[in-house]
């Protein structure tokens, strides 16, 4: 069978389809977006009508997946690392209810923050929830992780996290696939109260979940994803997790390497193997992508005088993505570098596209704010965050999805005037609605600008649940109809747009301004496909 070339994200999606999944639930977020994008174009998924449309946000996605698991079918929730914060409530509690049909939570971390606000490590969340986590090291393992993960989830009746990172999500390699399995039939949990988290039940469930950890450790000890490669030189042992294993092997294959290696791609840590390497080796180097999670956990294992090396002692960089050169340095192996980058190389910071509607919205806002030194613009997560950069210098904050409206609300009460919130259309439906309701309830004085480019732009143009209903929803949330204003962000409309902003800033209450013009990238794609 010829291998097919797949991104890590795509390999996981293909694996889940072949393993008989019935529904994917997720919200776009780099680097996880390609999981569901792949499913949306997959013929088998379309023919079987596997659920593959986008959810409003990660929380609704996670809950929908839990609902499908309740009904006995295999399902996956997908999100980026910070999306798991949004889904944290159902995620943590799904460890308490457990799963019926196989339930995978695919979370793609972004160490080095290529496209994110932070570099939190989702393995911490898996450990926090007391559920197993699989961290594939390559694309074939991404594919296998779906089959294995579903089996593990159904065996222990627990959700299982699949942790990906940017470098695996967005890297392509040949993958060998298996035959497509049948989907699970509708079946209810054996225990009718399994998904009932009344405190009395929760206490009983927690009393089972905590002791279950010993069995999860045993599963890790026997897992095909973990591997112990013994070596005779015990002066140093290596624990290499996920992608860290690749960077180790990249270096090791070139030299005569005699140190014991423990590859970890399934958590909780395989206790037996960890104890072996800790007791036999003088030093243990931990190579892990993300935060020093395993390195810190090792301190809990009996280690005698074993010295633990990794990101905390400076053997490897404390922050950011690893690469083969970091690992070569930590191992004291030859480390080549080509010629240095010439000093005249200029950076090309990401920028709003030529013709982007956000440019015209920002020009109007900046002009209006010239007259008011205490005016501030609270922005959100999306392409429009690039409005911070010159030549626009148009926004002051960016915290998390939906925080533009709520931060503007708090600042407005503290005396910031005008307080302007800038949020994208997709982000508004993701987590802007509740904030806007707070504003209406408190009769706050602020202007909410919903930049409507009719797509989820930053992640490459996905559709979203609330499309076409912005005005209706704002009205339903209680915003006065006269203060829901739609404008067209075009250079020739500038004067008119400035006037609308002036009027709504002058209005004492909640105003919504909707600059509406399609994203130039999705427009280009549409025109191309029509040709």
């Amino acid at each position, binding site marked *: 069978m*010829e*291998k097919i*070339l797949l*991104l890590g994200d795509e390999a996981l999606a293909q694996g889940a389809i072949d393993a008989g999944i019935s529904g994917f639930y997720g919200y776009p977020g*780099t*680097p996880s*977006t*390609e999981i569901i994008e792949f499913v949306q174009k997959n013929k088998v998924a379309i023919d079987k009508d596997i659920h593959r449309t986008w959810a409003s946000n990660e929380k609704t996605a996670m809950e929908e997946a839990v609902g499908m698991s309740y009904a006995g079918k295999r399902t996956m929730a997908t999100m980026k690392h910070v999306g798991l914060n949004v889904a944290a409530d159902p995620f943590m509690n799904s460890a308490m209810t457990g799963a019926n049909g196989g339930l995978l939570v695919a979370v793609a971390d972004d160490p080095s923050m*290529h*496209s994110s606000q932070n570099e939190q490590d989702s393995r911490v969340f898996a450990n926090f929830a007391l559920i197993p986590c699989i961290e594939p090291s390559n694309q074939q393992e991404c594919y296998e992780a779906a089959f294995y993960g579903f089996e593990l989830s159904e065996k222990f009746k627990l959700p299982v996290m699949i942790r990906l990172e940017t*470098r*695996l999500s*967005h*890297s*392509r*390699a*040949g993958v060998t696939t298996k035959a497509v399995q049948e989907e699970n039939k509708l079946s209810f949990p054996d225990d009718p109260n399994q998904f009932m988290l009344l405190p009395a039940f929760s206490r009983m469930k927690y009393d089972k979940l905590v002791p279950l950890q010993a069995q999860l450790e045993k599963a890790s000890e026997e897992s095909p994803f973990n591997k112990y490669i013994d070596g005779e030189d015990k002066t140093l042992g290596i624990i290499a997790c996920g*992608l860290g*294993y*690749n*960077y180790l*092997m*990249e*270096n090791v*294959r070139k030299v005569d390497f005699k140190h014991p290696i423990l590859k970890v791609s399934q958590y909780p840590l395989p206790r037996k193997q960890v104890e072996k390497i800790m007791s036999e080796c003088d030093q243990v180097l931990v190579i892990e992508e993300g935060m020093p999670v395993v390195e810190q956990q090792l301190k809990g294992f009996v280690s005698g005088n074993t010295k633990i090396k990794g990101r905390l002692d400076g053997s490897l960089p404390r922050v950011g993505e690893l*690469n*083969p*050169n970091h690992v*070569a340095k930590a191992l004291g192996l030859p*480390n*080549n*570098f*080509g*010629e*240095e*980058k*010439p000093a*005249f*190389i*200029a*950076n*090309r*910071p*990401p*920028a*709003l*596209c030529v013709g982007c509607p956000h440019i015209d919205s920002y020009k109007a806002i900046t002009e209006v704010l010239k007259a008011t030194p205490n005016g501030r613009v609270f922005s959100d997560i999306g*392409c429009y965050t*690039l409005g911070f950069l010159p030549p626009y210098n148009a926004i002051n904050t960016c915290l998390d999805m939906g925080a533009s409206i709520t931060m503007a609300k708090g600042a407005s009460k503290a005396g910031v005037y005008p307080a302007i919130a800038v949020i994208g259309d997709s982000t508004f439906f993701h987590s802007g609605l509740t904030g806007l309701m707070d504003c209406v309830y408190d009769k706050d004085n602020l202007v909410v600008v919903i930049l409507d480019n009719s797509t989820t732009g*930053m*992640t*490459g143009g996905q559709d979203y649940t609330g499309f076409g209903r912005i005005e209706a929803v704002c009205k339903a949330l209680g915003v006065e109809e006269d203060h829901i204003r739609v404008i067209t962000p075009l250079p020739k409309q500038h004067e008119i747009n400035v006037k609308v902003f002036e009027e709504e800033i002058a209005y004492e209450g909640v105003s919504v301004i909707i600059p509406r013009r399609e994203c130039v990238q999705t427009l280009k794609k549409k025109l191309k496909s029509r040709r």
Partner: protein
Amino acid sequence: MKKDIILAGVGGQGILTIATVIGQAAVSSKMYIKQAEVHGMSQRGGDVQSHLRISDEEIFSDLIPMGEADLILSVEPMEALRYLPYLNENGWLIANSTPFVNITNYPEKEEVYNKIKAYKNHVLIDADTIAKEIGSARSMNMVILGAAVKTLGFTINQIEDAIKTIFGRKGEAIVEANIKALKAGFEAAK
């Protein structure tokens, strides 16, 4: 055979298509391949790069170690130099000479060209002009790929077959335009 290739350019210039074609040629030859791409925020007008590794042995790292790239293949001259720390001392530097200027502090063109020419193994061709001359301005990326064929370890026929596989769905005219561009680049680099 093992080839570690850095593909470089600016978002939208078509480096991922180059990667796809080389990747297809590698897969057809039953070789191992890994190709790391850049998606998301860094795409918007920013510099983009792809690490493409092909080998007849198993490949571990998705990233090419610094100092080990056999080839930097760039559709833009300054972008070719951004990744010099990756190039091994006998590596090839193959670049398009047409600059993509979307910043105010773009360096002097001559300075960039001189640096590229200082490498013993370099090819510097005006792929934009070559593509226009053969009536296929949008195939600039295939011209650059053509210029690299000899250093890739594939025959031009293998790359042509890969183009046919990749562009086949888009019709005969697109396939022909891309193959014409490939051949023009191949000739220009001779």
